[in-house]
């Protein structure tokens, strides 16, 4: 199922989407990441796993530009995130990053369609066009019929699908997922896994942080194991059916 240290063999010719070089992150006296270097190429689906508190979410935050490293550099889609100010980081996320969270993080005040359209509207896309594209996405994800439903009335799986649709709204170069199945029942989790797999298969680069080995083996092409803020092991994965 796995073959060690052969991560560059298949993807050696593809564009590097993420490059972390000696990234260190400290929170007071605690070191969350300690000299992490990592490359992710276009079309890859990378799963980051490790015990709680090992630094995997911090790693994801660095790539998303949600947090800044104490040392080292983070380059995503050719952009050195360390050189960007807050507004620059926001614009970078808007155009190049899509994020999915364990607890969905949808706006309770907006129905599913408007939650999805929101991401495009922030770029200045007119409401009508944004809603049209959002509807297409919801349709692709199989929840178009729930477009006018508010998050509180959606199931966990449906909420996560809406979150995925929102993440894809601006056609991001990189889709980040933080425990995307962590708050879902097994059936909904399966649906989300299928969704991520499908996305990757049509070329979407994916970086996931998960505790769930099923998600990693089902969706990822590469596994990065993190322990005590360091990358302990990287390996290619062969997806299971």
């Amino acid at each position, binding site marked *: 199922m796995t073959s060690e240290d052969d991560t560059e063999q298949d993807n050696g010719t593809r564009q590097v989407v993420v490059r972390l070089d000696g990234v260190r992150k400290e929170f007071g006296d605690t070191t969350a990441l300690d000299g992490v270097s990592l490359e992710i190429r276009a079309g890859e689906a990378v799963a980051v796993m490790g015990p709680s508190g090992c630094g995997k*979410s*911090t790693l994801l*935050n660095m790539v*998303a530009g*949600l*947090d800044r490293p104490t040392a080292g550099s983070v380059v995503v889609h050719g952009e050195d995130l360390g050189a960007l100010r*807050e*507004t620059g980081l*926001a*614009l*970078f*996320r*808007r*155009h190049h*990053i899509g*994020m999915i*969270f*364990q*607890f969905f*993080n*949808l*706006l*309770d*005040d*907006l*129905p599913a369609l*408007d939650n999805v*359209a*929101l*991401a495009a*509207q*922030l*770029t*200045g896309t*007119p*409401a*009508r066009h944004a*809603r049209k594209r959002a509807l297409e996405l919801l349709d692709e994800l199989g929840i178009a019929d729930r477009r006018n439903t*508010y*998050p*509180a*009335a959606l199931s966990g799986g449906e909420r996560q699908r809406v979150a995925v649709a*929102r*993440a894809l709204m*601006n056609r991001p170069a990189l889709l980040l997922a*933080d425990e995307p199945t962590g708050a879902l029942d097994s059936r909904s989790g399966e649906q989300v896994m299928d969704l991520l797999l499908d996305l990757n298969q049509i070329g979407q680069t994916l970086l996931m942080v998960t505790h769930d080995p099923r998600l990693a083996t089902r969706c990822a092409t590469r596994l990065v194991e993190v322990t005590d803020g360091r990358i302990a092991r990287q390996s290619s994965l062969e997806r299971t059916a």
Partner: protein
Amino acid sequence: MSAVWRAARAAVRRRRLQTLVIGVTVLLSTATLVVALGLLAVSSGPFDQAFSRQSGAHVTAAFDAGKVTDAQLARTAHSAGVEAFAGPFGQAVLNVPATADIVRAGNRITVVGRADPAGPVDRLNLWAGHWATRPGQIVLEAPPLAGNSSVGAKIAISSGPTLTVVGMASSITRTADAWVAPSQIAALHPTGTQMDYRFTSAATSAEIRTDLAPVTDGLPRGALLNSTSYLSVKDRVDSGPGTLVPFLLVFGVLGLTVAIVIIINVVSGAVVAGFRHIGVLKAMGFTPNQVVAVYLLMVCVPAILGCVVGTALGDLLAKPLLKKAFESFISAGVILPARVSPWVDAACLLGVPVLAGLAALVPALRAHRVSAVEAISAGSRQQAGRGLRVQRRLSGTRLPRSVSLGLGLPFARPARSALTMVTVVLGVASVTFAIGVSASLTRLQNDDPGHNSAGIQAVLLAGGRTGPETGRAATKLGDAGTQARLRSLPGAVNVTAETHAALAIAGSARRIDTVFYRGSTSNFGFKVVDGRWYRGPGEIVLSSGQLYQSGLAVGDGLTLALGGRQTHLTIVGEVLAGPGDSFADWTTLERLSPRAAARSYDVQLAPGTDANAYLAKALAADPGLSRGQPPSASTTALVIISFSSLITLMLGAVSVLGVVNTVVLNTRERRRDLGMLKSIGMTPRQVTAMVVTSMAALGAIGGVLGVPLGVAAHRLIIPITGRAARFDLPGSIIDVWSTPMLGLLALAGVVIAALGALVPAGAAARLTIAEVLHSE
């Protein structure tokens, strides 16, 4: 109890900003209230107390000694309605030199012969020296103030004896300027006899007129020279603070309402935001009552602190204001406390925290009702949104998404938004009211020629002691020559000679301060409220205050005296001017003082003329002239304007704090949403715009609602204040609003809201996304 106290203390520490908002809001509101109530308490008591203590005369009557005997007057004491009396006392009007030794009397004084300062009516407050018991002694009337004593001074009576001041006394209704022993008054050739009456019922002017009728019934016609009601004195002394009290009460009520609204908002917010905290407390074993106690303590601790500091601040602010407001009381000899009444402090110290506690009780009871499980789950569960239809509609508009999201935010918490809007409404109403007050007072000053700097560009004083009393001019060219010379200088358009004189009302101790003009007054901007301006000799125009105090009306006749001469005048108009002013033509003065000379020359210059250059030429032309002070603003008006500006700033700050509190609550509740929005690319500026917009929308509505409220308060209060100050205000003083001005004032709501939202919005924009999005 210690567990409750500990939990409350921890809650206060955790909610530092909310604690600060409650404390500062209560502080500022209490300070405003203390000043307003303090002034009200002092203004409603001292005269009545002093009047009762001194057994003041309801009516002081002067009778013609040639027409009525003392025995006849003594019999009037048995008339129906007379409760007590003093008299008959011989009364003489004397000319004395106007020296500094006679503090208040001026140079024409009414002297009464009295055996002692006590008695059943008009008990005098002999506050320095002793009573005049033998010839050669005199007691002067003056308020008991430091530096007012003239004991030991000598007063040379014109064509009479020289008297030594042996005592100083004050009379609550000022029945005389001075008193001598009965054995002395005969030598001063009294022309009148004074009787002081107290009646069984004398609450109104009508009652006093009814009381006086049987007193004068049996007397020869014309025996009564004049009578003075205590009501006019009371009215005069009350008019000072009366002008300030309505303003302060409005501000006090506004301040307290804002404080209550903010406290309800803060505690409701704390209850909603602290649902999980409530659940934890209950799960730990806190009873519902203990939970309520925690929340009440959380509010009452900063409220009590704010109230204590606010009371001290109010006391401090009230001191100079009381001094200014009660000048008229002090001059009437009423001793006033130097500080706010202790019951006001006690009422505020007790009442404001109770009010804050009551305001907190309603939302705190919500914490009482909710079960532990419900509270804990409510604190973490995904809640259905509110105002969904509005959000939906806004999302489809062409507005930038950050703006449309911001506009929708207030609908998510309608009650909180409503309370915040009320705060803004009251803030805007305060600003509107204060600006209206300032505009009215400014217009009032501009309409009062005594304070009108627009009509007169230069004032030149005639040197030396001039005026009607001395009848001489100290200028080189003489009075008329100086006026002609000033008129001939380049740039002069009009030169009007002016002098003042205190004219005695015939047979009375009262005087009317009259301004006499020689020359045109058409550009002085006098605002005639009723009747017309004088046209020549024999006519006089009185201010509203003078008319009110004297009980006269336009059309009435009046005999005035100066230096032994009398002239009969007709009141032809009522004018908007200082309460003590009246105006007449120079030709009227010439009847009373043929050789009177001007004290000053008011010069109107042609547009573009350099006033300083003109003055230099005028002074060079006649060394007897000196530069006069340009007209200045009334100090009472300045006090009101500056005080209302100060309170407006305070209430504005409180409103801003109310908005800060709401935004802090909103952004804390929406941390996750904000984090999500930032994660999908909302820039810090867009976050700030969204948060500020959410409050600006409320501010705009608050502005639109607050302006009419402020205008209504202004329209209600200004006429009340005018009546208190004895002004009949024309419509132009009240109609100060213009459409652009109202439009700008409506924007004040947006400004208050934006100011309040800016700082917490900035904090929201700096929110660390990673922290909020990964915790649930």
